[in-house]
């Protein structure tokens, strides 16, 4: 893990290859609203980061910038050595390597579970159907729902749908996984099955960025917990220290609020 440096001093070639993700002085506005302010973040390969913060703090926007679902207006973003610009080729390249899991699953309701998983491998990776199906079944087995492959998303519970969404992202064999509040839309009894899937993924060494308020998960797998508020990173520390010894006033208050 790198030492603290100034952003400007990082030579680009070095910066872009050494880290899985690097954000340098990223700023974003929605109209007049300044949502992301001077975000600087480096994620090493295999690192697992949990991002928390009150709603509207910019955490979702930040990870959505990483696969260009949102455009940033100032600063630079490198993903696996590729800089995100308006270049569509670069965006395609990055999106192939970065999987994303959404709060509301966003499964394709007109396709079966299996078809949901094979769509991108077939049309983006140009994989033969049979091979794509094998890959899909492999990951569906991994998220423990291979028997649902022929069903449609509408027939599954929320937790099952979210696990399918994880499997669907994994079928592209991404190097990085982004999770945008993956358990927020779930009924309480289904949170665990999704978190278990995420834990086992973490144990395999996947680079992960998770926006979540599941503090148990953060303690268990995170290498680093980042607290965001007012569109900026307020505090960042390894989990035990973060929870036991929050430094910033905002962090203390936030933790006090969510841990009652």
């Amino acid at each position, binding site marked *: 893990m790198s030492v603290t440096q100034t952003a400007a001093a990082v030579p680009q070639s070095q910066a872009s290859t050494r880290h899985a993700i690097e954000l340098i002085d990223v700023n974003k506005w929605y109209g007049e609203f300044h949502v992301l302010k001077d975000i600087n973040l480096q994620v090493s390969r295999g690192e697992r980061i949990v991002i928390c913060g009150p709603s509207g703090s910019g955490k979702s926007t930040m990870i959505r910038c990483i696969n260009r679902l949102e455009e940033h207006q100032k600063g630079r973003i490198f993903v696996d050595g590729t800089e995100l610009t308006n270049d569509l080729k670069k965006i395609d390249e990055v999106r192939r390597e*970065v999987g994303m899991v959404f709060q509301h699953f966003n499964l394709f309701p007109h396709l079966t579970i299996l078809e949901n998983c094979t769509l991108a491998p077939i*049309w983006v990776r140009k994989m033969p159907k049979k091979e794509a199906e094998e890959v899909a079944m492999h990951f569906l087995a991994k998220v423990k729902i291979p028997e649902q492959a022929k069903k449609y998303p509408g027939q599954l519970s929320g937790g099952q749908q979210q696990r399918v969404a994880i499997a669907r992202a994994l079928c*592209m064999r991404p190097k990085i996984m982004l999770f945008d509040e993956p358990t927020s839309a779930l009924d309480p009894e289904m949170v665990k099955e999704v978190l278990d899937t995420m834990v086992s993924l973490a144990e395999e060494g996947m680079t992960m960025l998770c926006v979540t308020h599941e503090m148990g998960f953060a303690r268990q797998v995170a290498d680093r917990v980042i607290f965001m508020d007012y569109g900026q990173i307020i505090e960042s520390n390894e989990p035990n220290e973060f929870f036991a010894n929050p430094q910033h006033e905002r962090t203390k208050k936030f933790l006090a609020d969510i841990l009652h």
Partner: protein
Amino acid sequence: MSVQEGISPSPSTGDSGRVSLVNNPRVRGFIFQLITAIIIAVVLYIFVTNAQTNLRSQGIATGFGFLDQPASFDVNQSLIEFTQNATYGRVLLVGILNTLLVAAVGIILATIIGFMVGIARLSPNWMVRTLGTIYVEVTRNLPPLFQIFFWYVVLIKFSPSPRDSFSLFNAFFYSNRGLYMPSVVLGNGAIFIELSIVIAVVLALVVRYWARKRQEQTGEQFPVLWTAIGLIIGLPLIVSAIFGFPITFDVPELGGFNFRGGTRVIPEFVALTWALSIYTAGFIAEIVRAGIMAVSHGQTEAAGSLGLRPGPTLRLVVIPQAMRVIIPPLTSQYLNLTKNSSLAVAVGYPEITAIFAGTTLNQTGQAIEVIAITMCVYLTISIVTSIFMNWYNRRVALVER
């Protein structure tokens, strides 16, 4: 609705303390239905007896025999042969065919315009969006009959006389007499061209099948659409070249005050079809817009995050979902257009309402038979369409659950 079970409509509900039989919902339901049935029967009986007396006293013939009698009027556009001594039955057939012609051309045109405007309404470009909105608001808020009259006047006023007609390649002529275009005359060997079109279509289907299989096996993709277009245009061209182009065209020629030869499209048809297409397209545009908007933004984002480009995202994710929302109301718009084609009677285009429910009724006076037949024709079209709709909805519902 099972919640209504046991509660049957009865005007005397609420009167308590009567004998239990009257308060028995089943008995009440039965009585209520019996009364309704009797009322309907009595009304029908009165209608029938009245009709019998009225017809007798007015000396109007009854029965469908008139369909075999010669109609002594001419029809200015017919898809089938129509001579002076053709029967009223023939008139009916000509009318139905002309109705279907307007419906078919109108549906194609309205779909094209409607989808374009609907997509324009979702454009990120403000100018395009605004033009789309203006189109939708103007066309939907003016009566279709008004629009037909308007376009008819435009066509008549701004069309030159046959002598000064607009011409394209000296083969297409447009004047106030309508549009004259070359008609196709098939020579020797033309059968091979027709055959080659069939073969091209079959080949295109084979290519599609092969491309699918290949993609399943190797993942390689193949430009099926372009190949199919190439085949369907190219093959007949090559075949006709081999046979020395056995197709000739009967090109219209100006003689005196009018054209000879070729095929004529009368201005009434153009005005009617154009106006109905423009009108219906406004509604289709809104259906298309609503359908695409019904697909949540999350779907596009999910597809994007999986690395799918906008093109495949549209084709594989957005359109299949939007179509499920679009097709049912779209079908009812098609039905509306078909029913609105009856407005032809106002400009004198010879479809079923104009020449059958109009002219034939006037000449024979057999209002009951003529109107019953006319309504049956439209009802048949409606029923066939709704059978299709039910089938489609069932199919879609199956995919959902």
